[in-house]
């Protein structure tokens, strides 16, 4: 290395960027290789399904098309699938970067995977972003309140929150569904806004809000539990640190100490928020599947049940990319918020 980057923060950012680029290549490659070394042939299955009209004839697909094996060879030659996976990877990778994510064999009309993702993504984001934001804000204030209050309220509150955070979201959703649909009929039975073309009209938004009510409530409830437990632990850690003890000995009021602890405890919560933001892009599989909400999770469930390797690869690579970007952003935020990293007082490895 002939040159040295002088500014410590720039060095930190560049090191992080390099690490995440390597991670991204690794993740993409594993994601590409894995389905290819697993048994099962999705193209063969799709062609069989098309030609046999979904029914399995007793003699297999060759009973319907005698020269099936010959056609299969031809298909594999055209798409380059007869080559070893290592040689297929560059082609697939450049196509992925150019926005050609392949075709989904889950549906009979072979829709491009990119279109499927672009249809599902807005639904997932409108569901998960408000729930993440609300549970983050409420959880932070609740956790800090419990930590600063202490005593009996803290003990009881922590136990309740730990119980809530442990609840499986899908189970809570099932119970809400039973109460609010089966018993009270306040919400629709499924999360799919039916018989309506997605638009920004008032009617559609009202319909969507009705469909979102249950999963939103569920995810926010469980989210508040998790965020507040984390925040409480961070605030208590800050309250036991030396600078708070020193400030206390100087005679600063409890209110000011609490504010100091709160602000410093918020740093890891910010980075956790960024990481969770990246994790949002894969949707919540079980909740979306149970309630039939047309987001990324439901798409992933559909695609997986059809052994649709092409769509799975593209979606997994996309979500992994978003996750890694979010992690990178989280590290940058951490670097900016923590003056020790910003000014290069401590060096953070990897």
């Amino acid at each position, binding site marked *: 290395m002939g040159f040295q980057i002088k500014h410590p923060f720039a060095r930190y950012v560049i090191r992080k960027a390099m690490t995440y680029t390597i*991670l991204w290549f690794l*993740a993409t490659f594993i994601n590409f290789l894995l*389905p290819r070394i697993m048994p099962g042939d999705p193209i063969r299955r799709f062609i069989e399904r098309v030609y046999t009209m979904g029914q399995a004839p007793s003699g297999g697909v060759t009973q319907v098309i005698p020269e099936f094996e010959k056609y299969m060879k031809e298909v594999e030659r055209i798409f380059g699938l007869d080559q070893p996976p290592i040689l297929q990877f560059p082609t697939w990778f450049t196509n992925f970067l150019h926005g050609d994510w392949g075709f989904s064999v889950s549906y009979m009309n072979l829709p491009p995977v990119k279109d499927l993702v672009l249809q599902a993504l807005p639904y997932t984001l409108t569901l998960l972003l408000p729930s993440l934001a609300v549970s983050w804000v409420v959880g932070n204030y609740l956790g800090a309140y419990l930590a600063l209050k202490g005593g009996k309220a803290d003990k009881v509150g922590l136990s309740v929150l730990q119980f809530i955070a*442990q*609840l499986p979201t899908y189970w809570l959703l099932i119970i809400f569904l039973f109460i609010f649909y089966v018993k009270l009929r306040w919400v629709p039975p499924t999360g799919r806004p039916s018989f309506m073309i997605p638009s920004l009209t008032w009617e559609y938004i009202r319909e969507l809000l009705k469909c979102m009510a249950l999963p939103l409530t569920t995810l926010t409830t469980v989210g508040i539990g998790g965020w507040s437990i*984390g925040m409480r632990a961070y605030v*208590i850690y800050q309250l036991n640190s030396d600078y708070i003890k020193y400030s206390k000995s100087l005679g600063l009021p409890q209110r000011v100490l609490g504010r100091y602890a709160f602000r410093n405890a918020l740093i890891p919560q910010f980075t956790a928020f960024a990481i969770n933001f990246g994790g949002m892009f894969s949707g919540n599989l079980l909740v979306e599947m149970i309630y039939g909400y047309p987001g990324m999770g439901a798409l992933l469930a559909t695609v997986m049940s059809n052994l649709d390797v092409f769509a799975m690869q593209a979606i997994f690579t996309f979500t992994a990319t978003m996750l890694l970007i979010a992690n990178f952003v989280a590290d940058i935020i951490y670097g900016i918020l923590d003056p020790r990293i910003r000014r290069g007082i401590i060096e953070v490895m990897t």
Partner: protein
Amino acid sequence: MKSMFRSLALLSRLTYLRYTLLGELFTNRRFVVGFTIFIGLVLFSYIGSLYAYPDPWDISIYVGSTICAYEYRYLPPSLGHPLGTDQGCRDIFTWLVVGLKNSLYIAVIAAMISTTIATILGLIAGYRGGLLDDIINFLANFLMVIPMFIVLLMLVSYIPPEARTSLLVAIVIGITSWPGPARVVRSMVMQHRSADYIDIAKLTNFSTIEIILKEILPNVASYIFLIYINSFSQAIFAEVGIGALGYGPWDAVTLGRTFNNIIGGGLIFVGAWWSFTTVGLVVVMLSYSLLLVNLGLQHVFNPRLKLTYYAV
């Protein structure tokens, strides 16, 4: 309840039990409550299977034939079927009890695998350091960045259904959940690495393997036990998650599969609240009891965490 704790505390004080590790554990309220619930659930699965029907798939005992008759579907709770029946005339209580037992088996194996991998890698990485440490740490960080449930689902869905046995599912859960534990073991080992007693062991010509096994391992054993319990509850959650999506083992009835059956069979819309409430409550009690056990153990093994008792 309160008097029970008071008498336990009194007993421990009288017998000096308090000053032993076990005594301290059994006077810890969180541990006692969690342990009781957990043992209760294990007993429930074994005693319940005596009451339940022998085969969760065999409906001919009470229907009379292997074909599900209409009047035996979606039965409300009764003495013969404590949790009613589902769309295929199957007895949900049997499914719950057998599923709980199988899920516990899977979780035991999965947690054992992940803890073993984490311990070995953590010991090597923490004690040796250098390039090996960098590689293991990089791998662990990489795997922790990606949500493990998605990776697990990806791996399980790539396995063809016929090959998806409960042992294989347990192995897959085990090999996807070691990164977090490995990092904990590594940091614990690194704290002990530069201690004086290690230097003495080195001077007395102990080999590296001897130092790791005889000096370091006993010192981090309590953390490994904590990690095992944590992995156990994670494994149960993982199994229920993938099972509810329909990617659980195909050769055994598990809690996840019972959930999948309830969701797919429309028991929610029929209004059979007794079925899904009970099955879900069993999962929640299981994970909550393990959380309490873990918090209690942390309290005893690692008093420095007393103030915060981090959520696991």
